[in-house]
């Protein structure tokens, strides 16, 4: 996996960047989970739909990803009952399970408002490194000081 930071000067630049990378899957505050599905079903839905995997096999895949990220406690919760962290991990796993060429984590500060998110993101993404291809974090330039190692 290669992790890249993309600094955006303003919203217009961010929108233009997203529009210019249609092959990417977004993890964004603007793209919610399916509210009437549990976390497990939200993640399992992707392989079930895209590769015609039967439900049990897809749920096993989703469960193993939740296990790796330490979020099995959220597996049967629905969106309104999730913490910001649980919701973010679910969105990330929903994107990751389809193994797209690029995952764009859009404005992580809005997705994880209660965490010092740069080290958290780095740790989480390295945990999933073997199933991720490219992962780009889209953040505004004024948040750059939050990323001490980059």
């Amino acid at each position: 996996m290669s992790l890249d930071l993309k600094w955006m000067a303003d919203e217009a630049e961010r929108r233009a960047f997203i529009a210019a990378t249609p092959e990417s899957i977004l993890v964004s505050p603007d793209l919610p989970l399916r509210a009437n599905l549990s976390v497990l079903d939200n993640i399992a839905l992707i392989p079930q739909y895209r590769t015609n995997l039967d439900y049990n096999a897809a749920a096993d895949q989703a469960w193993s990803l939740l296990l790796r990220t330490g979020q099995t406690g959220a597996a049967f919760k629905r969106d309104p009952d999730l913490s910001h962290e649980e919701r973010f991990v679910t969105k990330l796993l929903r994107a990751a399970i389809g193994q797209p060429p690029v995952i764009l984590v859009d404005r992580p500060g809005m997705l994880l408002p209660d965490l010092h998110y740069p080290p958290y993101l780095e740790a989480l993404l390295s945990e999933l490194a073997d199933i991720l291809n490219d992962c780009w974090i889209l953040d505004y330039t004024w948040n750059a000081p939050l990323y001490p190692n980059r």
Partner: protein
Amino acid sequence: MAAISNFLARRGAALLATWRIWRDTLRFAGRAGVTAATPSAYNSATRGVVMKQIYFTAWQILPGFTLFAALLSFVLIQIVVSTAASFGLSDYALEVSMRLLVLELLPLVTALFVALRSGSAINTEVALMKIHGEIEALEDAGVDTLRLEFMPRVIGGMISVLALTAATSVLALVLAYLAVYGIQLWSLPDFNRVMGKVFDAPVLLSILLKSLAFGLAVTVIPVAEGLATPRKLFMAPISVLRGMVRLFFALMLIEVASLAFKYL
């Protein structure tokens, strides 16, 4: 002059909006129909949604609705049988009660019940999906929402209306037999003769087509109305209100068209 012009402009805009939503509904019905007829559209995820829709629309309500249909059928059969007897027309009681219940009333009552229970729920769910951006999120994850979310609801809704109509109709037949002949089996040949006269092939085909049209309406109109909801939360109740009113008129139109086709 300006007032007349404003009035006409407003009426024209309202008329265009109504025309647009019906056009979008028909367009959605066409797309859902084409997708439903494509075997590759079905996979484990879509089958799951179809089964859930049948479970929530038909299976969950089966005991309560069957009981209600039995009560309604029993009361109406008794009214028809006693009225026919008082006019010396007992020979026609069975045929009239079956025409009233199985051909007209039970399919319409079933469709109205499903519309109130599942149609409103589908309309609300799709409107909220649209407002919150869930449809966009699924599309971004490579999921065709027509194939995964909407077409299975249409299929499930149609199967549910058809199954509930069939179940309540069979129950009405049994109740009519009991009301006219009592608890015994040796009048079955007479009963079968009357039923054969009432339910000939064209009539059976018309019940099937009417139930399918009802099933299509109770799912297609709520989904199309939900999809047309602007992305503003306060529009959700307005969307459901509009969807339910349009659905009511569509069901009544189907019923009137079916009556006109049969009796005029």
